């Protein structure tokens, strides 16, 4: 039985990105007592994406921030309670799960993990030293400081190329450093990139080894051309790093929830994890396709599974 003095809910959703907000639209609309915790931005990574071209229903595309606002408003219309705070741990106490949060302990009959992922760091000299003073991970947040400047973008995936194109609004010249000999970015983006050839130069087979500065300002990036083994230098005012994502699952260590080899949450087809009453949806889930449309789809699926779970779990 739940302790009477501890705040208790039927469902706690961890995160308020597209997966979480969609699940909340479904559960709150059906009067399931639901709260959400968001430690960063409501809307998740979708909110910090400049422009979303492939989310269905928006023929001309939509600004990520506007899509996030729409999802938030829709969830709040049905009574979703979004708390600005963090969930630090989850433990399985049988019928109830205990969550340690910035609002204190909370008990929940069901928990939905929709915590997505965070940017990976390069782990090279200079990266920490010039953090937010020349080394950045969010183009929509910090790009505006580089009007008519020179930039280096590190990475060759969808995010890197999308962000390099966004940064051409501000910067005059952008060197994109790609470790391998090909790009992981989609054909569509690679084609788009060709339209910005006057500003963006892509350097393949180039590692990023050190970020160097003087008087508190970044001056250049040192890398290696792996085809020749020679050191290469790129003069720049700033560096934007987009080398992939790592799942936000460190807080699950004590939970008993099974993670895969890279730390993503393992679920079955109904999005149930290895712990009964704990579910996962969106980018954090092992096998996720890392798209907003799939995150919202999984949010809806998880909500259905959770409603059934709550109906079938007898009252204590």
């Amino acid at each position, binding site marked *: 039985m739940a302790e009477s003095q501890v705040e208790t809910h039927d469902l706690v959703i961890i995160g308020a990105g597209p997966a979480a907000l969609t699940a909340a639209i479904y559960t709150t609309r059906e009067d399931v007592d639901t709260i959400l915790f968001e430690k*960063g931005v409501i809307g998740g990574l979708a909110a910090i994406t400049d422009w979303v071209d492939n989310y269905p229903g928006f023929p001309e595309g939509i600004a990520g921030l506007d899509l996030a606002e729409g999802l938030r408003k829709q969830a709040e219309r049905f009574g979703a309670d979004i708390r*600005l705070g963090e969930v630090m741990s989850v433990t399985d106490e049988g019928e109830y799960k205990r969550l340690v949060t910035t609002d204190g302990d909370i008990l929940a009959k069901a928990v939905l993990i929709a915590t997505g992922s965070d940017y990976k760091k390069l782990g090279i000299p200079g990266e920490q030293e010039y953090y*937010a*003073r*020349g080394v*950045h991970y969010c183009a929509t*947040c910090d790009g*505006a400081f580089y009007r008519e400047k020179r930039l280096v973008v590190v990475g060759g995936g969808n995010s890197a190329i999308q962000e390099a194109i966004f940064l051409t609004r501000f910067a005059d010249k952008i060197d994109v450093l790609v470790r391998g000999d090909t790009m992981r970015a989609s054909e569509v983006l690679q084609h788009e990139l060709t339209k910005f050839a006057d500003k963006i130069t892509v350097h393949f087979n180039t590692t990023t080894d050190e970020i160097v500065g003087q008087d508190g300002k970044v001056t250049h990036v040192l890398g290696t051309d792996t085809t020749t083994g020679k050191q290469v230098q790129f003069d720049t005012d700033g560096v934007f790093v987009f080398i992939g994502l790592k799942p936000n699952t460190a807080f699950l260590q004590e939970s008993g929830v099974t993670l895969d080899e890279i730390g993503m949450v393992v679920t079955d087809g109904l999005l149930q994890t290895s712990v009964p009453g704990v579910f996962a949806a969106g980018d954090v889930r092992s096998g996720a396709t890392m798209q907003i449309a799939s995150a919202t789809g999984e949010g809806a699926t998880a909500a259905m599974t959770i409603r059934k779970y709550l109906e079938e779990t007898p009252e204590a």
Partner: protein
Amino acid sequence: MVKNITIFTTNTCAYCVMVKRWLGSKGISYEEVNLDQNPERQQEAFEISGQLSTPITLITKADDSQEVIVGYNLAKLAPAVA
């Protein structure tokens, strides 16, 4: 306790929206300087914070002392406006 608050923002910065939302939820008013609309104030934002990142929240207290918080960081914002 707090005399006034100025937030430096940009059009696309989602963390700026969160700082404004959080202050709004506490009934705290603030002045916003949008750096996309006022690029001439970019240098001032950098000098205040030493960083090239938004949001930059400048809090002036009753005794005219100032605190600068870069980013959306409730662990710093909450005590600064208390």
